[in-house]
Every structure is written in structure tokens, then in C-alpha cells.
């Protein structure tokens, strides 16, 4: 079984190198079969794409997309903890 640190590194690399995302600075943590994405992006569509790429890079894990969308004019959004 691959060590979770290597899986996390692979996902992080995919988020940075995949043409759909090219996103640096997203933190990837793995606990058991759960994968958590954290960081900040500027729009919801980018967050969705990051979740998609992460899922493709580690399809055996359940992805929790906790990436925060920061928009200068928005007061913030609710977070669903599932």
C-alpha cells in the first residue's frame, strides 16, 4: 500500500501541473481513505476543478473539498461539513 504522504504529493503535483487547474499552494492531507483539500482560490469554478483533478489523481479516496473561495466583495460563504 502506497504511503499517504506519496499519494498527497502526487495529488498536489496534479493540481499544479494539470492544465485545468495550474494551482499552487493547495494543501493536501490524507487520513485513512479521506482526502482533504485546503487553501484559497478566487472563484468557485476553480475550486470545483481542483476537486475534480484531485479525484482523478486519487480515485480510491473520498475527496473533501475544503478550499475556500475568497472574493473581495463577498462576505463569505457557509461551509458544509459532511
Amino acid at each position, binding site marked *: 500500500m502506497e504511503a499517504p504522504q506519496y499519494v498527497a504529493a502526487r495529488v498536489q503535483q496534479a493540481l499544479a501541473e494539470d492544465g485545468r487547474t495550474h494551482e499552487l499552494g493547495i494543501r493536501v492531507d490524507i487520513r485513512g481513505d479521506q482526502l482533504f483539500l485546503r487553501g484559497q482560490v478566487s472563484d468557485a469554478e476553480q475550486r470545483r476543478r481542483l476537486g475534480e483533478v484531485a479525484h482523478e489523481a486519487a480515485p480510491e479516496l473520498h475527496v473533501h473539498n475544503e478550499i475556500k473561495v475568497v472574493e473581495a466583495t463577498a462576505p463569505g460563504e*457557509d461551509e458544509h461539513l459532511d
Partner: protein
Amino acid sequence: MSTLTDLRIAAVGDIHLSTDDRGRYRSKLDGIENRADVFMLAGDLTRHGTLEEGRAVADELRGLPIPVVAVLGNHDYHSDLQYEIASELRDAGVVVLNDDGVVVQCGDKKLGVVGGKGFGGGYAGKCASEFGEREIKNFVSHTRFIAESWKVALKEIVADHRVVLSHYSPIKETLEGEPHEIYPFLGSYLLAEAVDTAGADLILHGHAHKGTEKGMTPGGIRVRNVALPVLGRAYAVYCLDWPEELGIHPA
């Protein structure tokens, strides 16, 4: 098809109100009842812990249309008037936790909230121990007593959801951005260990202004640093939900 049940928790810490701030924070809470079922405050409600500041905070929170649960922070202890400040808040209808718990009815759900100020000591592998000078033993044993109180309260509480409300941080992940050297003064892993043992859905804390909003305990419980400077907004809203028919409920 599963059904989702939401419980919406508005939370913020470190509002640090002074007597000059009367009315300013309250205006930011307009319409909170449309966004959340309960409002939680994670300590450091005042700047210096004076009674006048405590009264100003109580006035800001008085009469909100949703239940309000709060803990105090180290700033609220600064003038040794923590009990008086808590009393002012309670008179304004705020539930103030002091290493105990409360059950809040939110619609058809019971929300159990356990917590208190918390305390420091550091994180596993790099923390103080109950050894040597009496002062160090007192420091560590204070945190240990608090953690044990929370564990007991969590085990005893009967509710659909359980949330822990603290000022100090149970984990170091949500401190990221703060200087590593001050971590032992920002929280303790003993708090996380207690909550991991007893179980909870979410832990909210403040205190670390330069920290990071999101983290989790070693046991996988989500932790949120809701310090106002971290959030950058009047409060955050967290929704607890799960597919009921799958029986995914907190332990």
C-alpha cells in the same frame, strides 16, 4: 436518495470590542437569523477584560433572535473580572460555558455545546510536562483539568450534534502563520486528545489571529479557527449535515 439535515452554526472569535465600539458589531449581525440557527463566540470578546467592555459586549448581543453561546478568552480574564463579565453576558441572554456543556434546541435538533477558555502547553512532542517547578506543574495541570472536564461533559451530553467551543487551539494546524516559538501559548494537544476520545462533530476556537481557519485533530475531527482577523468577516457559518438514512451520526 438520502436526505440531508443541516444545522447552521455562525461563529466568530476575538471580536475584541471596546466601549467605543458600541453598535458597530451589532450592525454586522443583522439578518443572522436567516443564515444560522445558533451563534457561537470563541472568546476574547473584550480588549482588556474590563466590566465596561463586558457590558458593551452584552449590549451588542442582547436580544439576538437565535441562541448565543460563548466562552471567554484570555483578554476577558485580564482584569480578573471574568466572572462579572460572564454574569453580564448571561443577563443579556448569552449562554457562557466554563468547562461545561449546554444543550441548545435548534429546530427539531438538539445541539450539544461543550467548552470553555481552554489553555496552553504546546503540542505533542514539543510541550510542557507536569515536572519540576510548581509553576510549570500548575501551568500544565490547569490545561489537563480543563481537557478532562471537556471529556466528561462530552460523554455526558445527550444531543444530535456535539460541538466544542474553545478560545485556545487544540491543534497546531490552525496556528499556521503564527511564529512557532509561541505555539505553547496558543493551545494544547491535550484539548484535542480529550475531544478525540469523547467524540464531537466540530471544534471551534480563536486566539491565533495570524493562524489558519481550517484543520483537523489527529482523530479526524474538523477544527476551525474563527478568529475575526482570520475570517476577515463578521462571522463564518458552518453547516453540519449527514445522510440520515445511512445512519451516519456522531458517536
